[in-house]
């Protein structure tokens, strides 16, 4: 599954990531910076909550009428002279793109940043048949040069890399000889990669939102590499998740506003490209051939379920940027190309529960994600629903937990049991007392807790005892 990025266990990756001080400081630094710029820019709009509700409404409407809009989009793309392919699986999408590449006798492909091509493992597929794949988004270039290091964020995928890391990668792979100054590093990439745009046979892009009424694809970037990717090569292939669609330009404008402000705290990106089909007679540039690959890859299975609203996601990463868990463990710990809260919900749905069964527990359900989401996806509730699926449908429960919850479940449901068990716990715990207030080495359910925190000793007089005694005293 290309969604999964390694074969390591969640707890092991977390443990090693927590030792990585640079990564952690860049995650928390990025969160702090992005938080402030996001709050500033959304408050400029004055009625952000209304914008969010509007965004939610649009996404809900589109997902409820997805078949209609996909038909409209595909009809309009074909009217413009483009080709549309509906790929049910990652393999189908890759095979279609491979066929186009073979027909064009393509040797080189340039790509602008795209999560969905990451999801289907397109680069690996094309490289396996001898096609050179060149990423052109600066962060993606860095990751590609670093032996295809997986992304740690969906907007800034190389967030975990330091300037010095990047310098080393460039020295090794791009004959770089200068300093770790970002301007110099970026200039070097521009100089070395510029030619690839002119020599590539195919340009491949993702798609932020396709516009059904006009058969267009909308792409936002800050580097302009999408422009070069879609202007110079003779063939353009755009790959999109089937839910990334808006009815008209009016909704496009709303969602782009929500996306950009939430993602990076800007009011607009340097480039907002809306591309409609192949080059027309009167156009001076653009591709001669245009293909739109619409990818399902498990999405339609989510439709009509209690997880449908996760398909409302516009991939802005606002939830990732406010998540206190992500802040410490970093993106790669989620072992998925989709990290953070969105990843917790989406990865098991698209990639299966087997590989991602730890993720739903990697959340304190603090709700920061739901509050930040510009289209009001109830993320923390969906994370909770994932737990419910694991426990009640898949029976993925550790034995000791099952026993504990059975015992306490009964205890909670019955006052008598509650009373006796709280008394019992109280006397059991007294064995582990440290200065009569706290337990510093616990067992069973509090063993993990006391690995780094002290645990309070149950009081010998519970509140209910105190209250009862007090009432008695008052009466006397």
């Amino acid at each position, binding site marked *: 599954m290309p969604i999964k990025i390694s074969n390591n266990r969640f707890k092991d990756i977390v443990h090693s990531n927590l030792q990585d001080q640079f990564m952690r400081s860049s995650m928390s630094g990025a969160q702090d910076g992005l938080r402030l710029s996001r709050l500033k820019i959304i408050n400029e709009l004055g009625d952000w909550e209304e914008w969010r509700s509007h965004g939610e409404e649009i996404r809900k409407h589109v997902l409820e009428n997805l078949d209609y809009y996909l038909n409209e989009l595909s009809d309009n793309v074909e009217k413009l002279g483009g080709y549309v392919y509906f790929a049910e699986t990652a393999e189908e999408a890759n095979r279609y793109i491979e066929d186009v590449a073979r027909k064009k006798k393509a040797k080189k492909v340039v790509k602008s940043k795209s999560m969905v091509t990451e999801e289907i493992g397109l680069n690996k597929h094309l490289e396996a048949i001898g096609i050179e794949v060149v990423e052109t988004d600066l962060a993606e270039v860095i990751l590609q040069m670093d032996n295809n290091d997986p992304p740690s964020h969906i907007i800034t995928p190389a967030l975990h890399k330091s300037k010095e890391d990047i310098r080393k990668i460039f020295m090794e792979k791009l004959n770089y000889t200068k300093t770790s100054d970002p301007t110099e590093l970026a200039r070097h990439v521009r100089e070395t990669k510029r030619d690839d745009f002119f020599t590539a046979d195919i340009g491949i892009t993702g798609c932020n939102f396709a516009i059904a009424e006009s058969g267009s694809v909308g792409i936002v970037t800050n580097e302009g590499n999408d422009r070069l990717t879609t202007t110079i090569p003779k063939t353009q292939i755009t790959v999109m998740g089937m839910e990334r669609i808006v009815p008209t330009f009016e909704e496009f404008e709303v969602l782009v506003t929500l996306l950009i402000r939430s993602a990076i705290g800007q009011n607009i990106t340097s480039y907002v490209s809306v591309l409609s089909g192949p080059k027309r007679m009167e156009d001076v540039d653009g591709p001669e051939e245009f293909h739109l690959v619409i990818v399902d890859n498990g999405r339609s299975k989510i439709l009509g379920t209690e997880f449908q609203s996760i398909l409302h996601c516009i991939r802005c990463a606002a939830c990732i940027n406010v998540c206190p868990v992500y802040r*410490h463990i970093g993106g790669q710990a989620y072992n998925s190309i989709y990290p953070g809260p969105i990843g917790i919900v989406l990865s098991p749905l698209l990639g299966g529960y087997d590989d991602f069964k730890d993720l739903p527990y990697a959340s304190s359900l603090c709700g920061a994600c739901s509050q930040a989401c510009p289209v009001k996806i109830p993320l923390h509730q969906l994370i909770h629903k994932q737990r419910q699926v694991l426990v009640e449908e898949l029976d993925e429960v550790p034995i000791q937990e099952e026993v504990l919850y059975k015992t306490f479940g009964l205890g*909670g449901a019955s006052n008598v049991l509650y009373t006796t068990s709280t008394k019992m716990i109280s006397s059991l715990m007294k064995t582990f007392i440290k200065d009569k207030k706290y337990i510093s080495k616990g067992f069973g359910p509090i063993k993990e807790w006391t690995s780094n925190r002290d645990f309070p000793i149950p009081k010998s007089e519970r509140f209910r005892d105190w209250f009862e005694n007090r009432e008695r005293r008052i009466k006397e």
Partner: protein
Amino acid sequence: MKVTLFVTCVVDIFETDIGKATVELLERLGCEIDFPKKQVCCGQPFHAAGYVERSKPMMKDMIETFENSEVVVTPSGSCALMFKKYPEILANEPNWAKRATTLAQKTYELTDFIVNVLKTENVGAKLNGVATYHTSCQMTRLLGVKDSPSKLLSNVEGLQMKPLPYRYNCCGFGGTFATKMAEISEQMVDEKVNSVIETNADILIAAEGGCMMNIAGRMQRRNVPIKVMHIAEVLNSH
């Protein structure tokens, strides 16, 4: 006003002082306190861990327990929130959902109740010291009780309040999260403790027993000499 206290299991077992302070404070404000002994746990730990079906009998017990109460007040935002979630959780059992809605509508978190029902912002409390306040996620962000604690604290005589940096970040309690993901939780609570230290306060005030157990437990382990108090204890100081 007759107030039924829902004390929460954490307070009942571990933090009885919070319960006592809540009773004394509400009585000082003219309330008559009733405590149905049938009350146990609201089911939150079970529900949050994914055991939704298993937590339903506990919820029904609680609905029955508080059926005859006029208002239900609890010194915990997350437990108040749990009551407010009952109708949705029991949605496919219309009779229970209806009774759950009645309970949800008459349930208040303590500070919210004092400010918005009793219409009191100054409870006549006195406490000398420098303090900072930890906003619990469930209470602030999800239940929506945002301003009541600061309104009440600003009127405590002798108390100097310092803003807590990164107050919006979770302290790492998250119920079972603290044990299931202890290593991550440790980093989160450490960051919280460091923020508290940074304020130079000698008291950390919170309105949520779970967060208090978590932050106090870490401070105890790190030998940080900062006192942790529930807002009910602060408002009951005079």
